[in-house]
């Protein structure tokens, strides 16, 4: 199934770094998310991202993960040529991950 079925997410940006939260809707899905959605898998799924640039933080009491992806925003919102310079769309892209 897609991660979208069991989790929601939001993207934030600071300079050239994107962060994406991944939050389980139901507490019973948390162990699966915690096990499957690793920093390495997120790097692979997002493409063009080195696993070394992804850090994962866990907040188990909120059944939430926070992924920090450095160098993800082609220079950051003020100078990037990207259409979505904030990377706002990335959270929904991550929710397409098959788990």
């Amino acid at each position, binding site marked *: 199934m897609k991660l979208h079925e069991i989790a*929601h997410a*939001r993207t934030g940006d600071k300079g050239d770094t994107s962060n994406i939260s991944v939050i389980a809707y139901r507490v019973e899905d948390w162990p699966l998310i915690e096990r499957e959605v690793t920093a390495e898998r997120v790097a692979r799924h997002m493409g063009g991202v080195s696993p070394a640039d992804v850090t994962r933080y866990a907040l188990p009491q909120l059944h939430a993960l926070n992924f920090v992806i450095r160098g993800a925003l082609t220079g*950051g919102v003020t100078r990037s040529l990207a259409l979505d310079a904030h990377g706002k769309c990335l959270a929904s892209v991550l929710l397409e991950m098959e788990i």
Partner: protein
Amino acid sequence: MSVVRIGTGAGFQGDRIAPAVDLAERGELDFLVFECLAERTIALAQQARLADPAAGFDPLLERRMRAVLPACARNGTRIVTNMGAANPRAAAERTRSVVRELGLSLTVAAVIGDDVLHLVGDCILAETGAPARALKDRLISANAYIGVAGIVEALDAGADIVICGRASDPALFLAPLVHRFGWAMDDWERLGRGTLVGHLLECSAQITGGYFADPGVKDVPNLAEVGFPLAEVSEDGTAVITKLPGTGGMVTRATCTEQLLYEIHDPVRYMQPDVVADFSKVELDEIGPDRVRVTGGSGQPASGQLKVSVGYRDGWRGEGQISYAGANCVARGRLAADLVHQRLAELGDRILEERAELIGLDAVAPAVARGAADPAEVRLRVAARCADAETAERVGEEVEGLYLCGPAGGGGVSRASREIIAVVSTLIPAASVSVRVELTEGVDA
């Protein structure tokens, strides 16, 4: 001690005004906070001030003040805002005019001192590793993210409206709490909790159901009339996040969790001017309809360094778009991209960076392959960073030229160009930044 009620009047420069008026009228608020200053906004404001010494503050300041001041004055609600942008003194003066015109009696304070352009020359920029002075005449602005001190001083002195420039966003909310509860500036736990409240509130509707809806899985009631949030904060820094009855949107554990992690890196170390806040043990509990209790925030001593946003001119940006639809649209879009690239090549190193993408196929999610894509339509977008305005114009011109000289069936061209004001960051010792409060124009409090 009683609970302090603090609401969000704006979470960005262009935010809606009516929800702030609703909060001012019905919120029984002690404080209403307007956060209107993004990273780049202050650099643009600095440019405006260079062109006109009386300008450089938020263009919506007067409209917002006119809209909320009658209710705020009636209900004893005090205002804190960063709408001063690059010119808090002029913003305060304009606000005093509005206050007089409305026949009100309110004290307006300006908090001055975040402008550190004269101090940053030797500071090393995080993004380039070079000192700020290396930007030479391209350097426009340097503004430190100051903490609560100036705002607290203004509130202590009796200001009804406090207007600052660049301050940390959560500090706009933390300051009224420090003022009202008399928290010590080394009470890291309370400062961390107040920062948490500020962080949750600072993006207005992003915690009340805005930026949340996903039909079928995350439905939000009456999103068109989404209300802005308010917090009921206790003396120990714990709080309840809620919104006004009858407004659209919702406050749930899920909306609060998304906002908690918004723009957060390591949740143990949320760097702020007055504290390093710790959000890692935060608990969110739904205690009633649209009521979420927030506990478990904490903090560690501040680093002694302030983040500084440095703005500089970074060339010009040109852009053009054109649509292709129907049979073979992806191939025609790609051919169009190739043609524009070939045409721009003759401009040589006046094109500093170039990017082309097909909207509908690979524009905002370029790296994620969805397999054999066969969209009904695509829109070519070409963008380039250029050395000068004329070259930037050429980007749109070349896309427009595809009308007659490009692949079959291109339509709906749009084009634009503008100067790029880039923002990078550095750190400065907090002790080197002196903040002043003016309760009357030009006179320190």
